[in-house]
């Protein structure tokens, strides 16, 4: 099953490699990983999407907690949560495709950030599956480049992760 782990970690050199090293050393999957400092500059927040049985994810959580620089770990998928990912896509946009591409971006509530006479760069946010849906909706030959951030997540309502 897919799990989203939110991790508060000391904003120190080497913390990221400790965490990614743990995943590779113990053979756990990383689907995606994002990290940036929080409002408290001494701490970073990381979102890791991983796939594993409940037993494996329990072990991952325990092993993460064991790392000295990890302050807190929460499995967001245990409760209600919001998940968002950002994607930038550069697509070919010329001739009859140009109008169609604009329409498609509108349907997916994408924004066109950059325009040349041959291409659009579109910004899309949503769950991973929404971004996947956009990719499948357009012809593969039209895509020039994509970049995705991986998921970020936050608990719904009163579910708060802080120290």
């Amino acid at each position: 099953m897919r799990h989203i782990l939110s991790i508060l970690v000391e904003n120190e050199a080497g913390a990221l490699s400790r965490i990614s090293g743990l995943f590779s050393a113990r053979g756990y999957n990383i689907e995606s990983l994002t990290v940036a400092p929080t409002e408290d500059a001494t701490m970073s927040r990381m979102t890791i999407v991983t796939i594993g049985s409940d037993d494996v994810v329990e072990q991952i959580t325990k092993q993460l907690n064991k790392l000295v620089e990890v302050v807190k770990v929460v499995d967001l998928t245990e409760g209600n949560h919001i998940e968002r990912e950002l994607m930038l896509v550069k697509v070919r946009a010329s001739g009859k495709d140009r109008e169609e591409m604009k329409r498609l971006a509108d349907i997916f509530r994408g924004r066109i950030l950059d325009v040349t006479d041959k291409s659009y760069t579109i910004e899309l946010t949503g769950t991973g599956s929404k971004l996947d849906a956009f990719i499948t909706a357009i012809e593969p030959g039209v895509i020039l480049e994509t970049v995705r951030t991986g998921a970020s997540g936050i608990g719904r309502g009163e579910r708060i992760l802080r120290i």
Partner: protein
Amino acid sequence: MELTGAEIVVRCLKDEGVEYVFGYPGGAVLNIYDEIFKQDAVKHVLVRHEQGAVHAADGYSRSSRKVGVALVTSGPGVTNAVTGIATAYMDSVPMVVLTGQVPTHAIGQDAFQECDTVGITRPCVKHNFLVKDVKDLATTIKKAFYLAASGRPGPVLVDIPKDVTQASTEYSYPKTVSLRSYNPVTKGHLGQIKKAVQLLLDAKRPMIYAGGGVILNDAAPQLTRLTRLLGFPCTNTLMGLGAFPGTDPQFTGMLGMHGTYESNMAMQHCDVLIAIGARFDDRVIGDPAHFSRGDRRIIHIDIDPSSISKRVKVDVPIVGYVADVLDEMIRQIENSPQRPDAAALKAWWADIKEWQRKDCLKYDRKSDLIKPQMVIEKLYAITKGDAIITSDVGQHQMWAAQYYRFDKPRRWINSGGLGTMGFGLPAAMGAQMANPDATVACVTGEASIQMCIQELSTCKQYHLPIKVVNLNNRYMGMVRQWQEFFYGNRYAESYMDALPDFVKLAEAYGHVGLRIEKPGDIDGALAEAFKLKERTVFLDFMTDQTENVFPMVPGGKGLTEMILAEEL
């Protein structure tokens, strides 16, 4: 007054109460060595290889319950130390390793004797630090000692660039430190303990399975009290030997791959199992799927939550210091009106006695060749079971574990997790340093001993009267045993050709060497060796080449699928 980084390092060690530092100098740590030279409070032990330094610090720690300290230089000093660090990590030994590093401005420049120490050691330390500013040095060293000894202990490394040892700052050593990200759960959950006690009191076929965690947490008295209070059988892991007295009638012997028949059978057939400071290691329970077929409830006490339900699902997890949890358990049992089910226990002990009748540790006592088991039994007799025994890795290690009956904790020192050949001799040095009046023997084999044999020189320099008991079968015995059982007797590269004359070698290092070739000479040689209280003695026992370790659970098999000596 301002102190240099090098002065601070030595002052920190002194203020931490460190007695010995095991190390080897080199370019990046010269400033620190210069400060060591100028004082007497912290004594330095010069080894002959950095691996030996870390193993010695390890043996020092295991035999004394203090934090071991090693000091090595950058680059090759560090890479040589890695085996020792990984050994300590696998066995949760509290240790601080100080490493020199090239100056901060040279880091990343492929400088002479540079390596990414923090990167290389990251997977085999509890934590590590690179100190980039002398102002952080004292606090970092304090943190290292705190982390090493608290929670689940382990090695912590502090990497110190040379310019940091030159720079100056005001010195103050913090009395305590706290890290907001590090708060191990140390007190067991009372509700869980209550549940566990109820399970124990209701048990019909209970089993106590105790490991190295009991020794690390100094909980042997509590374990012994609990076991006697309940009247249950108790087994110890390789790491746990001495946690419960080896000569006690309630002790069923070590369990696992080379454990006793009765312990392994009881593990599989019990209805309530309490695991205490043990981690269901593959060498202990064999195939977890086979093990899980047993219909039993499991209680697991451990300081490390990640050790719980890692390989085997447990019913009552209790996270906390073993000693405290056992104290609470004993209190609750004593206050309970309920007593263990005497009739059920009687029947269960009858089963165990039946298994014991197999006499799984019997061997040919009338052989014309020296049986390695006999050497260990005679070693046990002459040291009255009260020596500190270190070992290397292989058959000799298993025989020492099986035939030397450890009644006290911290008397059996071996590399259980990583299985590091070369561990025994330097670990014995550390143990002898920590316990100058104790009898220390290193049980080894002719293959293992050669992996750190240079430390015989350290033994000479510091007058360490260690007795090296070399069970010399001219084979890498455990490798040969596996090749005999599982590889059609094809002894690929396991024969030890061109062995040195160990007697002459010992003499060359300035020690006494004895070669023993007949069973009748074992007693005399041991008596002679142990009479030499001031000398290192190398006893080279020429043992039966074909002897194997029994019982044996082949790798990947179930715990009860044992090969016994008589079955071959």
